[in-house]
């Protein structure tokens, strides 16, 4: 199957801001493009997006396709799917990457199904390698909750598509010297593009430092239930200037937000220090901090799996340990 030697990304904007993960995967697209002797391009959809297109070029995009229309300001699944699919079918890029944000995970499967190609979810690694004698994308995903790494290939279809977890790739340096081409496309929208219509976005930018940028992360699990929730954990975080993260059960309990979820379906983090408290150590959680520096685990159950993936473990009542820790650090 013939394809352009291009590696594309979908550049996600919300309220006129580019998502960090979009710049991260743009950096990765540049690396993969060098490996196959091609170029990196981005698709950008929104309203009045020229400024963002220039940002993408400053971060290494050789080409940016833009669709600009007031009706495209918010994410519209029908319209975005059609516009991306049609452009992909026309230009046949070799690879297409999307950030594994909650919206990227909504969009990528529809595009893949419409184009009829393969899609690999929540990748934690992307490399070019020889498959059946041809250079193909090898996409690594955490399997079985993160205890395994599964390599997945899409040898006979283009584009080879993947969604990439935030934090996996490095955001490239910004440079005003980069050259790139902005190609403004016509959207030609109709009613079928808005069967499911996003009418409003509500965003509350979080206060303070986030788990994927912090040098120290304090993370809690379901074991904080007996400690009465996250109160003292947040106190410790404030004391250390740390970000607060948590496990899926902590999210279900409403102690953290989706954006602070650590693990396979949340964020992959790499702080210098992680203190994990009251988390039993399920694979899909621990796979989220393989790249952390020092890991300190606190849990009341000496048999908990978390002690197999920590550097220092403290067995004890989570609330008590926290109280003593806060006392000593004050």
């Amino acid at each position: 199957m013939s394809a352009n030697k291009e590696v594309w990304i979908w550049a996600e904007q919300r309220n006129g801001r580019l998502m960090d993960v979009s710049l991260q995967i743009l950096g990765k697209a540049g690396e993969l493009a060098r490996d196959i002797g091609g170029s990196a391009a981005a698709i950008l959809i929104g309203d009045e997006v020229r400024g963002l297109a220039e940002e993408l070029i400053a971060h290494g995009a050789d080409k940016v396709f833009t669709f600009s229309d007031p009706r495209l300001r918010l994410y519209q699944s029908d319209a975005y799917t059609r516009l991306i699919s049609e452009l992909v079918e026309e230009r046949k890029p070799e690879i297409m990457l999307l950030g594994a944000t909650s919206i990227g995970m909504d969009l990528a499967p529809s595009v893949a199904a419409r184009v009829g190609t393969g899609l690999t979810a929540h990748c934690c690694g992307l490399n070019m390698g020889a498959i059946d004698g041809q250079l193909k994308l090898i996409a690594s995903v955490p399997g079985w909750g993160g205890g395994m790494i599964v390599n997945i290939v899409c040898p006979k279809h283009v584009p080879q598509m993947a969604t990439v977890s935030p934090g996996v790739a490095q955001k490239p340096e910004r440079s005003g010297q980069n050259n790139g081409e902005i190609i403004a496309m016509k959207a030609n929208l109709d009613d079928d593009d808005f069967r499911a219509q996003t009418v409003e976005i509500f965003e509350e930018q979080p206060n303070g430092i986030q788990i994927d940028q912090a040098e120290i992360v304090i993370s809690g699990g379901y074991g904080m239930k007996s400690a009465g929730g996250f109160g003292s954990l947040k106190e410790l975080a404030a004391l250390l200037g740390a970000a607060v993260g948590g496990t899926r059960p902590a999210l279900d309990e409403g102690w953290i937000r989706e954006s602070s979820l650590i693990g396979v379906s949340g964020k992959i983090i790499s702080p210098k220090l992680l203190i994990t408290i009251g988390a039993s150590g399920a694979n899909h959680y621990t796979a989220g901090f393989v790249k952390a520096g020092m890991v300190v685990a606190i849990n009341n159950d000496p048999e908990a799996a978390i002690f197999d993936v920590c550097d220092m473990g403290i067995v004890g009542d989570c609330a008590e340990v926290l109280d003593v820790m806060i006392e000593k650090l004050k």
Partner: protein
Amino acid sequence: MLPLNIVVCVKQVANPDYFSQITLDPETGAIQREKVPSILNPMDENALEEALKLRDKYSGKVTVISMGPPQAREVLEWSLTLGADEAILLCDRAFAAGDTLATAHVLAAGIREICPCDIIFCGNEAADGATQQVGPQIAELLGFPHITNVNELVVREDKTAVVKRIIEYGYLKIEVQLPVLIAVSREINQPRAATAEGILTLGDKVFKTWTLNEIKVNPKDIGLEGSPTRVSGVFEQKNERRREVLQGALEDMVNTAIEELRQEELV
């Protein structure tokens, strides 16, 4: 306009509590999961609950559908016990080894047999693969709009719906005319428990098993042949660390830890 014809896609998965017991055979590299019990995928319970709530409010029918081996019957029967009206198991060797797209082709073909339907519910992700892909792909193949990661759903009498879907730092509010595919998050509701009545009436419910012969799907689109992706290798992920469990009184342990963190200039 009402009642509602509702479909819920469910999956039998390995219980995530036992994932750490899944290992690779050192000789063959095959995945060993014999001792891992199976359950109804947790988020599918929320999908079923949302369907049952709507049926109870507006009347109609809830059909649960699953693609899987014969033992996937268990999770469909469990869904019937919880209150679903009918169950369909899509079961054929030809369906096996499919990736998300091939799986979506089979499920879409099964659902097409019971269309027109108003809402298809899925859990937002399965506890095992966690790809979040099959739901939107079913919608795409059926020509339905889809909304994922939904934590609030209001269906009105005129078959329109207002939906809140979670994004990283907030939500999107989405309006849609049925039919639609909705993938739900765990926050959307609290699934009901089974009742004695549910258990007693299980035998009266309709349970169908459909093979390739009962659905209209191109054999080239399903199973291994219909899968654009394939696995090229599996490795155990090592998270190698010191694993030093501190000893002594609580104060001493905390002191030791803090001392080391200070030495390493981490705090």
